[in-house]
């Protein structure tokens, strides 16, 4: 079988008459004793003849008309549409670009140094805003500084609460009551 393999690489050249005389003689000597190889040569010749005699087919009657239409369509395409139409075929370029951009953004977000006590500061802000809204129920942004400061200093708050007792609503006055009571 190994000997057959050695000759099989020359089958095509032999069939097409391109084998050098020395190689051809060696192959013919092998074919004289090897039925498998001689049958294979015979079958390849028939297959080749069958391939060569495959019936030709012709293009449909509207082929050239259709092609002309497609060319006309191509010529009528406005210049700025070209890249858009090309995207259909070259979709990989914008897709890869977007993917790279996403990875870069993600990388920057992940690798940037974490801001210390982010959650805590958030809570602080939240608490501060609660306190501010408590102290300044009117919601006027400019009125926030003084009440916030008042909460940090009980004595002042106490003073404020006594002064503004009539104007500050009951709910807003609760922290004052804690101190005052």
């Amino acid at each position, binding site marked *: 079988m190994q000997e057959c393999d050695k000759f099989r690489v020359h089958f*095509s050249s032999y069939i097409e008459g391109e084998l050098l005389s020395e190689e051809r003689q060696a192959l013919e000597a092998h074919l004289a004793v090897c039925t498998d190889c001689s049958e294979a040569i015979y079958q*390849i010749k*028939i*297959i080749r*003849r069958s391939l060569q005699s*495959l019936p030709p*087919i012709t*293009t449909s009657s509207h*082929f050239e008309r259709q092609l002309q239409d497609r060319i006309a369509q191509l010529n009528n395409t406005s210049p700025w549409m070209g890249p858009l139409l090309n995207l259909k075929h070259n979709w990989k370029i914008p897709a890869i670009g977007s993917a790279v951009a996403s990875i870069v953004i993600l990388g920057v977000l992940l690798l940037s140094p974490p801001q210390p006590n982010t959650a805590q500061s958030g809570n602080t802000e939240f608490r501060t805003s609660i306190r501010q809204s408590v102290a300044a129920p009117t919601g006027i942004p400019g009125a926030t500084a003084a009440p916030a400061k008042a909460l940090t200093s009980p004595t002042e708050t106490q003073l404020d609460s006594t002064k503004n007792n009539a104007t500050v609503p009951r709910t807003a006055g609760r922290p004052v009551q804690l101190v005052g009571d």
Partner: protein
Amino acid sequence: MTGKKKNNKPQKVTDEELIARFQQGDQQAFDILVHRYKDQLLNFVYRFVGNRNDAEDIVQETFLRVYKNKHYYKEIAKFSTWIYTIAGNLAKTELRKRKRRKLFSVSNFMNEEKDYEIPDEDKNPELEVDGTIKDDIIQKAIEKLPPKFKEVILLRDVQGFSYEEISQILNIPLGTVKSRVNRGRLKLQEDLKFLFENEEKSKEESKI
């Protein structure tokens, strides 16, 4: 060009002259090239992809590419080599698309590609009277070939290109072309030998 195409009437204007005229804006030269190549390209692509409509689309696309990229053609290569390279690449792309579709198609998991059915009749119905193999059988055998063997077999045995031309069309070394042609033929022989086994059987039975 060699093989079957040699039998055509002598052409007054060469393909290379026509493409040169087209590059200079002669639309009629392009039309002549279309007329010259449409059928032979269709035969090549049809045998490659096995579907007539797809083949016709691919041939149209081939001409569109020639139209759009006419200035990329350089006279160092034959026009036939250039246009067959374009058509062959498009045909291979189509086969790759189909392979992907097949991979993702659930229905195809159930319907595996059918193999040839070995005929039971005494006479061999797969062979023609002249001893050649029937067209549909040979077409199925071509379709089963891996693309790298299919393209060289079609270019060599169906289209009649020389080994040198195939080497230029596929941009692979001459030795590789020869080796692939040989392996492709052996593969076809392996796939179709059952036809001949049946032939042997019927010969032996007729002797009895």
